[in-house]
């Protein structure tokens, strides 16, 4: 039997119902169940501990204030994750940390054969690679490839076009590959 972690964890329905009635103990249980998952998502996207803490705090406060609007027709964890992601992207946007991509840039970025080999095998610390991407590239990469957002959904989140999401994801992979190749070169030089 595998132990569920992060947003895969399920909360008993009665905890959500108690929280809807304003029970602070129930809210605390919700927090303790999903705090790490929320913090991880926010931190990986924005790559700033202070901002991630603020995002998490604001997201949970929003959950506490809006829990009555949660109808229970989806998973509670998904609803919570959506709030955290929206809050994170809004913070990034308000901090002007979005790199704008022109609509025509998609055409310029020709295929670079990004997946011809499993180049990420060389990377021991993937988080350090992610930290070196631009905030936008990291956010789009994680939203599309990890959280399962479509380009359209990402475009809506950022208030941009689908092309913006596609080119940003492409660039994120290209940058990761470049980082991996450089690391491979350094490792080869040391041998």
């Amino acid at each position, binding site marked *: 039997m595998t132990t569920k972690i992060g947003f895969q964890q399920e909360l008993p329905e009665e905890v959500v119902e108690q929280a809807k009635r304003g029970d602070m103990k129930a809210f605390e249980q919700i927090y303790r169940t999903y705090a790490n998952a929320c913090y991880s998502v926010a931190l990986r996207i924005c790559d700033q501990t202070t901002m991630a803490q603020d995002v998490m705090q604001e997201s*949970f406060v929003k959950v506490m204030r809006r829990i009555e609007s949660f109808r229970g027709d989806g998973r509670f964890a998904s609803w919570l994750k959506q709030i955290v992601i929206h809050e994170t992207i809004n913070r990034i946007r308000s901090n002007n940390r979005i790199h704008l991509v022109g609509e025509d840039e998609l055409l310029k970025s020709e295929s*670079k054969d990004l997946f011809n080999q499993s180049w990420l095998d060389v990377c021991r610390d993937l988080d350090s690679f992610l930290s070196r991407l631009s905030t936008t590239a990291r956010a789009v990469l994680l939203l599309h490839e990890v959280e399962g957002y479509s380009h359209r959904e990402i475009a809506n989140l950022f208030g941009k076009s689908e092309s913006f999401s596609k080119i940003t994801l492409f660039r994120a992979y290209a940058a990761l590959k470049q980082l991996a190749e450089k690391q491979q070169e350094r490792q080869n030089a040391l041998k």
Partner: protein
Amino acid sequence: MHLSDEQLIELDSNARSHIADCHQCQQKIANLENLRQRLRALPEVPAPENGWLRVSQAYQFQVEQQQARKQVSFWRFSSFALVASLSLVLFFLWPSEKAGQLDQSMSENQLAHSQKLKSLIEQNDLLQQQLNRQLMLNHLDEANFKRLQVELSVVDKALQQAYIQRLGSDEKVQLWQQRQRLIEQLLESAKRPEIVKI
């Protein structure tokens, strides 16, 4: 013709049928899936220790702020109502001061009092306008504001009574001065807002 990187990232039905017959593209998709697996397998980062304390305090703070805003809007309404009723009292019961038509039979002392009163009313009116602007912007210090608003409403009621009962100028001047000081204190607290950081 093999699939482009973009086609590999987001497979459509044509791309899927191509992959079924193309060993090279199958290998690329396997590499991409490997990358995705690495990204999805990133470990959880533990949240800060005092997180729940911060969240519950921030929630409490927001709830209190909301309650205070409701009180402010109620007070704003009652303040406008008091000012309006006071103006009506001035209009009907004290026409000479309202229009500045001072009785010629007044002594110099009475004349000076009337002018002082007129000037005080004008100053109060200006300060009241400033205060209303600050109220709109919610720039007032909550603790001071609550205390002073109670004192201000007491003075406003006393002023109403002073005009209805046609009390002497001295009492009215005192009350108007008291009102002016209270509004000045309220505005002063607005200039130095308390920053609450949780």
